């Protein structure tokens, strides 16, 4: 078997707290996942679940407090500054907010050239590459001389994608890259992601709260709930036939743009909730008497 691109084992992430002898806050409680070359691992979860933190740990922007992350067999969980800069060629990122992810004072051309310049490209080659990248993401050539504020959210996100593609990476961490976009823009940007993946063989870790987006782009899916991956498998397995009760709830909570289907889904969700309330309500009563404490307070 070939080594996966990314192999995370029992990954813990904890942020140190300010103040004397205060315990760090653990956000991610030991997750395992692999990303193979050329595939998309979808990470779905709600706000505060830790899905973004998992991505940031791979990028070296969040502190790994336990376990390991390896990239092509090399341990990168505590990579030094110099190692990180070398990794920049292989691991890139597209953030959610296309407004704060581009420096408002830098032209698109300079933003795109920066990662190339730090990799030691000469100016002429970098300029040529910038034009090629703009073309790749469907932006006009004259965009290079313009400022981010002259572009719409969708166009800015294309710039962010171009920046991530610049050094020819093997993996791009995509942190909610289409959540801030309008519906019609969202679909075209997603298609761009897929097209680029087919052409270049880049792998994605695609983080989103939107199951429809995840289904659209992922080969495999991991469901994050309160710092744990509660369910993981192929896209079809996880999203068509979820085993974990949280995944089931998540699936039924997403409204579908079809009035009849949505009515059915809503009734199913309400039925499931009542069932859940009956079970846990009963357990809570038992717990009050000191029985079944552990069961009544599931994570």
């Amino acid at each position, binding site marked *: 078997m070939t080594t996966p691109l990314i192999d995370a084992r029992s990954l813990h992430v904890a942020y140190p707290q300010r103040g004397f002898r205060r315990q760090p806050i653990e956000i991610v409680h030991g997750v395992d996942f692999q990303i193979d*070359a*050329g*595939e*998309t691992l979808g990470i779905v979860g*709600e706000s505060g679940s830790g899905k973004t933190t998992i991505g940031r740990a791979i990028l*070296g*922007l969040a502190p790994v407090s336990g376990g390991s992350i390896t990239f092509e067999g090399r341990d990168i969980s505590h990579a030094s*500054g110099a190692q*990180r*800069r070398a990794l*920049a*060629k292989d691991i*890139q*990122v597209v*953030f959610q907010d296309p407004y*704060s*992810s581009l*420096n408002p*004072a*830098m032209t698109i051309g*300079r*933003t795109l050239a*920066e*990662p190339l310049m*730090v990799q030691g490209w000469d100016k002429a080659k970098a300029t040529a590459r910038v034009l090629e990248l703009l073309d790749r993401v469907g932006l006009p050539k004259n965009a290079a*001389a313009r*400022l981010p504020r002259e572009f719409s959210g969708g166009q800015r996100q294309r710039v962010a994608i171009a*920046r991530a593609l610049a*050094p*020819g990476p093997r993996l791009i961490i995509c942190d909610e890259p289409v959540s801030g976009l*309008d*519906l*019609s823009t969202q*679909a075209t940007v997603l298609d761009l992601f897929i097209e680029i993946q*087919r*052409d*270049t*063989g880049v*792998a994605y870790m695609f983080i989103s*709260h939107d199951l*429809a987006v995840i*289904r*659209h*782009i992922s*080969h495999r899916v991991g469901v994050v709930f309160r710092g744990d991956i509660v369910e993981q498998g192929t*896209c079809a397995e996880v*999203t068509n036939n979820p085993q974990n009760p949280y995944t089931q709830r*998540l699936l039924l*909570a*997403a*409204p*579908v*743009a*079809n*009035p*009849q*289907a*949505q009515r059915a889904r*809503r009734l199913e969700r*309400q039925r499931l909730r009542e069932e859940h309330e009956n079970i846990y309500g009963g357990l809570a009563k038992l717990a009050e008497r000191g029985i079944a404490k552990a069961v009544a307070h599931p994570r």
Partner: protein
Amino acid sequence: MATDEARKSVLHRLLRDPQAVITASILLATIALGLLANVLPQHGPNDVVFGNVNLPTGSPGYPFGANQLGQDIFARVLHSINTAWVSALIGASVALVVGTTFGLIGGYFTRLRSGVEWVFTVVMTLPGILLLILLMPLTGGDFRATMLIYGFLMSPGVYRIVRNQTIGVSKELYVDAAKVSGVTHTRILFRHILSVVRGPIIIATSFLTGTAIGVQAGLAFLGVGSAEIASFGGMISQGFRAINIDPMQFIWPSIFLGLITANIVLFGNALRDALEGSRPKPQKITATQTTEGFSAEVSGPADELAVLQVRDLGIAYKSPAGVLNEVVRGVNLTIRQGETIGLVGESGSGKTQTAFGILGVLPLEAKVTRGSVRIEGNECLGAPEPVLRALRGNTIAYVPQEPMSNLDPVYTIGSQLVEGIRAADGCTKPEARERAIELLGRVGIPNPQRVFKSYPHEISGGMAQRVLIAGAVASRPKILIADEPTTALDVTVQAEILDLLRELQEEMNMAIIMVTHNFGVVADICDRIAVMKQGQIVETGQIEELFANPSHEYTKMLLDSILDEDTIRTDPPVRQGANQ
């Protein structure tokens, strides 16, 4: 290139500000006078001529007169100007370099922050002037050495500004993106952070300059430093002693010192305005502004059953050129009791502006150009504010998109709810309190008593939205306008909020206008849908019908863009060795 452009426009703004132009000219003139200190006067600053003791102002060769030692006051004033500017230069640049360097370090490298912070706190506690006097033996009375030390004493001020700005900018995603791109820390600090913190630094510098001049003069007044060096402080002190003989000896240096320090402060203020822009005025809600000669007109029959009838509504904003641009262009909307209508569109389609127009809470710059808004048959456009306020409290209510930013963090949730309830129906405080707790329970908050006493930051976003819904339905409104009420929330929370709105609607028979971009939400809760594009409603219909058979091209395009629930990615991953 971009920063050049920004800089150019700052210079442009400065040149158009009379305060900046006048103060800068005066300051430049004093500098020019100082540079000519060895040319203009006929005597050196320390030349002592005993025959000329206490010459009055206007004496030949002594335009400002002479002092008790027979020295030329004019010459001494010009040399004092040089002393002042050199002091300013040394003091401000030391403070600037030290403060900025460590501010960047302390702001950017979190690990070093507490150490740097500690050092600057210690520096801040040092008694400045006293220390400078005590260090006299070390500086030998040279004002330049003194100002060098004073620069260090002023650096904590710059440090604080730069550190705070840097912490803010470091959290921007583009700094993270640069880190991921392998950009070195030094380069990030210079390219991405310094450019943003530059403005505040420039402003601080102008004020530091004034402080340095003042402190140098103060020290010289106290007699710290060499008497050989002409300085405003020393001259004023000397003039004091001769005040009974000739007050002008004291007035001349005071005028120049005052002129320089006052102009530095005024120029600093002008600079601040140019760099940061004048502060925006707080938004004030007033009755909706209408264009001149506006009168609400209704064509067509009035719908007797409608609780809200919007006819041909037009809302415009003035462009910088002064032309009115319509962002809402003739919207028609009718809604009956108990009905839910989805107002759907992409960003910039005018859906929120329409909602604000109905509520009568458009910003001051907005103008209603045409149309009519009738709530239960009463015309709202052009109605006086008290009438609208009564309407907003009782008949029409609003649930916003961002629950957290719509709760005041300083007050408890209870007090905010009580205030709203009392404003709407004027009941007593205990009554309002009882109602608020009852409402909190009604909107599904598990422990209403506790949440009543909590502050907004102590509850989750979903809970905050429930609180706002409780506030909105407190007076059992006829119409509820919900502007993307679930967009900021998780899907599981969204589902619960939609359930809650549905229950409340059945209970109170409200009409709901649901402004949203999410067709799933529309399918879940709406009876009818109105699709907006560029300020117009392009299509409206019952949801089953519209989802099945959209007639307008734009609606079709939007529905096609929805990621189909049934499609799932099937193509296998591209394997290794693919071309780059």
